[in-house]
């Protein structure tokens, strides 16, 4: 099959690209999760201006295309960043908005009685959040988080437009080298799929591990 021949022949380029995609994904997830957590605490805070700021952030980053965000960060900002950093910032900032909404749904979905029970035992609001609310919220939104991580893997492919040599960029390079669009691009699809499928299995395993004990 032509696809596998191409994959094999250009395995180094595919692997190298996949490595960049993977690293980009991991950095973006890390950045997005941390920022997402920050945003959700702002959104649920008592301070009105913080709430407003977080809401505005989420609306803007969900409401404009990632492509535009990436191009602004790479080309239009006064500070110069390298391609990889621009990719991480763009994908991270964007997914933080989605992750914040997922976290919020999880936190607000925790039964009010749980908070009351914890507070009635003398636990502070912080302790209640940390030991009671967040662990339960994370469990309940794990599938949604997994979904978002898979989206992140796929969306990193957008960095090809700024010339960062990720999987998509390399696959396109192979296309122009071989004049065979089908095998080169389907090859990329296969490698992306292996990554997303592994992620989905990983999350599934984590879900089962957490759920064996405490399914209500």
């Amino acid at each position: 099959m032509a696809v596998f021949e191409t994959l094999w022949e250009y395995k180094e380029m595919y692997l190298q690209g996949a490595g960049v995609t993977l690293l980009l994904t991991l950095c973006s997830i890390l950045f997005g999760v941390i920022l997402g957590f920050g945003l959700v605490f702002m959104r649920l805070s008592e301070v009105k201006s913080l709430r407003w700021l977080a809401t505005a952030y989420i609306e803007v980053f969900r409401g404009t295309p990632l492509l535009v965000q990436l191009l602004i960060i790479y080309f239009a900002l006064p500070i110069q960043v390298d391609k990889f950093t621009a990719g991480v910032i763009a994908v991270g900032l964007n997914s933080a908005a989605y992750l914040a909404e997922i976290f919020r749904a999880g936190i607000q979905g925790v039964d009010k009685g749980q908070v009351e029970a914890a507070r009635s035992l003398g636990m502070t609001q912080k302790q209640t959040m940390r030991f009671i609310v967040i662990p339960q919220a994370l469990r309940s939104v794990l599938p949604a988080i997994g979904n978002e991580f898979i989206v992140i893997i796929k969306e990193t492919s957008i960095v090809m437009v700024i010339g960062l040599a990720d999987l998509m960029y390399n696959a396109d390079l192979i296309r122009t080298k071989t004049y065979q669009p089908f095998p080169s691009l389907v090859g990329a699809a296969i490698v992306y799929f292996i990554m997303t499928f592994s992620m989905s299995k990983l999350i599934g395993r984590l879900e089962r591990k957490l759920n064996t004990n405490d399914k209500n």
Partner: protein
Amino acid sequence: MIKIEQLHKRFGKLHILQGVNAEIRQGEVVVVIGPSGSGKSTLLRCMNLIEEPSDGKIYFEGQCINEKAHDVNNTREKMGMVFQSFNLFPHMTVLDNITLAPIKVKGQSKSEAEQIAMNLLHKVGLSDKAHVYPSKLSGGQKQRIAIARALAMKPHVMLFDEPTSALDPEMVGEVLEVMKSLAQEGMTMVIVTHEMGFAKEVGDRILFMDGGNIVEEGTPEEVFQAPKHPRTQEFLRKVIN
């Protein structure tokens, strides 16, 4: 021990508590009865400020607890609460449910907290469930664990908010049994319940609430045998038949 003065609670336009005055004395078992929506649960939930009063004062051991300057968490440590819906923490084992607050709030060591927890589990008859998750327990067992969890903080008073209302009938007895033994040990208790038989047997004093206020109070004999207020008479006629 607990003193309530002119307590009001409003939820938007709803005026749930309309100037309640009450006192709970050390070592007393006070049972609050009354029709649905009369404000029984709200009154109880105001006592440890899970519900914030709109107006009025609540004193606990001589201190006004609903002032801004007061440390609510410190007061709540001394007031155990048991809920209708148990509210066990589903992501923790029974033992962790009981030891979490003593360790995090009181700063007990893990081994100390676990020893106390095991004693309490023995007391509620569930020693074998220490390492089980709440989802594996029956309603009655969950509620007994919830009682043990509250007791682990060594509270000065226990508040029970309809502790048997969510239980299957055959499980009510085991929970009431635990509460009865607690009363016999001299624990100060405030109980909101629809279990009239239990109220009669265990209560030192009955408060009958209707329409956001305490309409009648007295010993179980006074309230159940010779209710004075027409609304108490009507309520008791309905529940006892």
